């Protein structure tokens, strides 16, 4: 990825609110969670929002780290591996009840939900997103 700070944030928000939302809507009914589907959606959608809000903060850090790279790029692998730190932080936030409106979430439910959303959004920004948004990759990830 070749991104500016603004581009990072715009891409993060856009991809989570489109592809991320769609993946969440599709996978939630299949997650191992007790209770009615409505409450399951309540949890996964709130987790999605948490990933988005904390993600914007993470992007600030990533942008700072990017400054140490001569190429000023963000390798594809970084986009994948940052799932670990971001996932852990969200999990900690869930464990300590810091995500508003979300109670106890089984670990496996979170893992499956988070992994599905992360993998599919990561795949999208590393290829297919260039098809509808042909200017996007040349504008540092900015959509507007």
């Amino acid at each position: 990825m070749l991104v500016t700070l603004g581009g990072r944030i715009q891409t993060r928000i856009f991809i989570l609110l489109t592809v991320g939302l769609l993946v969440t809507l599709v996978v939630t009914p299949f997650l191992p969670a007790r209770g009615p589907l409505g409450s399951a959606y309540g949890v996964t959608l709130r987790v999605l929002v948490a990933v988005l809000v904390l993600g914007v903060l993470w992007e600030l850090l990533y942008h700072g780290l990017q400054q140490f790279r001569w190429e000023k790029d963000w390798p594809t692998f970084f986009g994948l591996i940052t799932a670990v730190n971001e996932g852990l932080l969200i999990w900690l936030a869930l464990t300590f009840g810091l995500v508003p409106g979300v109670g106890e979430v089984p670990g496996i439910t979170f893992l499956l939900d988070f992994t599905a959303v992360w993998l599919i959004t990561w795949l999208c920004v590393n290829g297919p997103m260039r098809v509808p948004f042909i200017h996007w990759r040349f504008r540092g990830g900015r959509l507007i």
Partner: protein
Amino acid sequence: MLTPHGARQQASRGDGDLTPALIDTDVWTDEMVAGAGIPIVDSPIVMIGGGIGSFVTTDYLRICGVPTTAIRVLTTLDFPWQTYQFLTRVSQIPANERLRSDSASRPDNIWGFPSYAVEEALTAKSLQGFIAPLLQVLVEPIFTDYYTPRAGHVFQAMQRESERIRYPEMVVKGQVRIVRRRAGGGYFSVLTPPEGSTQTKRIAYRSQYVHVAVGYPGLKFLPDLQGYRERHGDHSRVVNAYEPHEHVYEQLLRQPGTVVVRGGGIVASRVLQRLMEDRFNKGAQTQIVHIFRTFITGSHGPSMFMRRRGGDGWAYQGFNYPKSVWGGQLKARMRKLEGAERAALYKVMGGTNTPKRKLWQNQMAQGRREGWYHTYAGEVEQIMPGDGGAVVTRVRTAGGALEIPAAYIIDGTGLEADISEHRLLADLLQHGGAGRNPIGRLDVERTFEVRGTRSGAGVMYASGTATLGGYFPGVDTFLGLQIAAQEICDDLAARGFSKRLGIGRSVSGWLKWARNRRI
């Protein structure tokens, strides 16, 4: 291919050649051209040069709905990658070798999706062939070298796209050395068709828009090497890596000798690879002496935030420029800079460099270990003939002067000539209103319009290496040509010439590309 038979002869008073009056006049009227007996052909847009720059711009225009009848490509080339293929082949990148280009920089696919790596995986005939390119693009450049496509793969893909967009239908063979502004707007591009193919010596293409992508103005030899060649008429022992020099490798297989390699860039790397592989695989006993003018010993740069890796003489970088010039931070930054500030950033990013590929590192390490690869840092003072047909390089090093006799000298510095060495660019500077940018090349706007050449409602654009030094670096690369093409098409769309490449057109264009549907 088109021949300009349809040219309308107008008021044929002259003999169809350029007249001194035309040559001396900056802005031509229709009457002046007709008066010289030069037939006039109308075309809304004319692409000058039929290389990859024109090809990707034409590709964009075709996808943006411009019909083939509205575009004429004036060129001496038979196909767009002809010059590139020649230069890569002589500089030791045959079809099965890999280029120095990113997986998603596809001149045959404006979206860069699927990337070359994905396509290579999908067409692989083995599981390993499927996994290897995907794994490489996943972990590059952290755990492995950058994935780069094979030259043959790139040429094949361009062939397919050329047929799909009906590129050959737009090509008119001939040379263009003059483009002049037209009174009333637009331009005349004067084509000299192949001798005997037309009734007149010249044909004038009258168009509202012109795109100039004429490639490298020419090769420039190092002055000391050029001086030796001129003084001694020896073009066999002192060669440039960008000219055919297969005889060097062949002779070294027959008779062991020493070769001096000059330069610290990708071409020098390729030449070294060939020399070393001839040792490993074909039994050559070549001694390699590698001379760096600037010897890089480690990471270097103006600040902790702008440090490039280096070592053993080389500056290391994956591609021609730091990667973010093609879309990220450095692209955004350069776009805002003017004059001296822009030139300064070019200087920081510039300098000769090469990728740090494991294969090359291992080969050089073996050469150093076994004592047949030697490096020197210094300024070459003179090249002179030596005993037994040798050429002697006299180098001024930190430790004093050194004389290195060798059977051959290969210049891998890849210096480019000044843009005024190209007749068309020189004419644009002299008569077309064009100027130079902060590093001395053709000055273009952010839209790639050639500054100073506006002619009424007519606009002239340029892309490629001639425009290096503008608001966008990386112009002389596959992706750079596409970035320029996108800017040009956006500008043309804003002027109502083509349709805007929005989400709908982009998606439908890609679907047609994916199904290889002719447009």
